[in-house]
């Protein structure tokens, strides 16, 4: 019997869906003959006593989840998400660099230093990448700090705001679609697939519209219904990042699929895995052996 630590924080537990998913994960691990302990930030010194660690809290290289991941790696304990995956996926600049290096299809993307920000540069980028453009602050998650801009004034306003949080920002070609594919990848293999339907009031999977948070709809898609090019691209993108657990977001427009982003710590509590009952069994097996 092995000991699985599930790292959580207060925010994780504040969501009923997350809590239900965590309890399901614990039940699966226990049914596989392992013991499970929830590890909170104050218990981080207990990580070396675990045989594996599964992080279920918002990851960022500057927060306590990265401490947990690094503690596990210091002590050679298998961990999802591993520190490298957190470093890469939490930072869109790093993530797109990895995808570009491996030749993975992404929208046309340029990194812009705050020293280069100018109306002239904005015009140049509209000319090069088209109109509208998407601007991303590199540590965006859940579509926060992702804005679509139509003109130079808007470009400058959004870029200046994001440049207060990061010296470099991402400027990207806008790809229109009704939904995003999400391909869940574990250890280089398909774990699950679903569609996130973009609300008509926005272009993101989550947005604040007139003061109300608007969420996308989630539709789990069985393996036989995943378009082969989307599946291949999802696996290719996951492998470009590492050997861990990833949620690859893909848009398909004009018959061409491209990766919008690769997420570590992908959501599993909103029905993404409805057609994939073995998701947690596979995750636990990946960490501890079947």
């Amino acid at each position, binding site marked *: 019997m092995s000991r699985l630590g599930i790292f959580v*924080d*207060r925010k994780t537990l504040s969501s009923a869906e997350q809590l239900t998913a965590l309890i399901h994960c614990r039940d699966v691990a226990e049914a596989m003959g392992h013991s499970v302990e929830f590890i909170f*930030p*104050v218990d*981080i*010194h207990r990580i070396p006593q675990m045989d594996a660690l599964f992080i279920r809290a918002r990851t*960022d*290289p*500057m*927060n*306590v989840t*990265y*401490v947990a991941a*690094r*503690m596990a790696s*210091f002590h050679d304990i298998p961990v999802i998400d591993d*520190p*490298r995956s957190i*470093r890469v996926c939490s*930072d869109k*600049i*790093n993530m797109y*660099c990895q995808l570009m*290096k491996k030749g993975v299809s992404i929208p046309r993307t340029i*990194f812009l*230093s*705050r*020293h280069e920000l100018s109306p002239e540069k904005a015009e140049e980028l509209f000319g090069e990448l088209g109109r509208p453009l998407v601007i991303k602050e*590199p*540590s965006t998650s859940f579509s926060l700090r992702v804005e679509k801009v139509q003109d130079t004034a808007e470009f400058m306003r959004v870029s200046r705001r994001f440049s207060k*949080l*990061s*010296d*470099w920002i991402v400027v990207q070609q806008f790809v229109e679609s009704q939904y995003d594919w999400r391909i869940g990848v574990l250890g280089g293999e398909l774990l699950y697939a679903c569609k996130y339907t973009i609300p008509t009031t926005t272009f993101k999977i989550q947005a604040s519209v007139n003061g109300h948070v608007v969420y996308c709809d989630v539709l789990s898609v069985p393996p036989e219904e995943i378009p082969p090019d989307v599946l291949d691209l999802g696996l290719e993108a996951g492998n470009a990042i590492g050997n861990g657990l990833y949620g690859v977001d893909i848009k398909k427009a004009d018959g061409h699929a491209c990766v919008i982003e690769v997420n570590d710590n992908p959501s599993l509590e909103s029905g993404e895995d409805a057609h994939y009952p073995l998701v947690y069994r596979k995750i636990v097996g990946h960490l501890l052996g079947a």
Partner: protein
Amino acid sequence: MGTRKDPPLVKDQTYMVRREGVTHVVSENYSYKSDTYYTILSQEMKGVAIAPTSQSVLDAGVVPICLEKARLAGIRVCEWGISHSYVPFPALLYGINYFATSSDYHPVAGPDETKAAIKHVTNCGKYPFCYQGLGDGDYIHRVHSVFGRVTTEDPGLSRLAGEIYDLFGIPLQTLVVRERAGEYAFSSLAPCRYSALSRDEKTLLHAYIERQEFL
């Protein structure tokens, strides 16, 4: 130290020192998502051997990671814990979050100042924080390290600076060190402004940057 007048170190400027196939990046600010961080990252993507690495920079910037990495390398470090509210004072407090910097540490000795410091380092309770217990008579040193060298003649601090540089590879940094009964324990690594360097430290840094010398 040299007696010639060195040119000024320019605020926010990043300098590159190339030696034996490695590019050493000298900066006042190695923090996550800074120009220096992305310069390091872009060089790594090109396969350039660079110091510090992007991983080292992040390890150095998050206090519990920095201390665990040092401890595993055999360096004496301050004992630490993570908390949302509890602190066995007196103690040093550090934030662990997106907005925290290791140069912003808070020595606390009583409940009122502890409460105020916790509110600050946790962004009003949103995040956990790191504490390090202090004892009566403990002294906190801040020492500038230039390529692992310090201008103090204290052998304990000199050795510690060398060990920390060997581990993290960060050419310019401030070591925060606790002294207790003549023994040193490493507390954190913080950025170092060029303007904060003494004349001797600036001269030392110039020797590395301009003359590309490793002394």
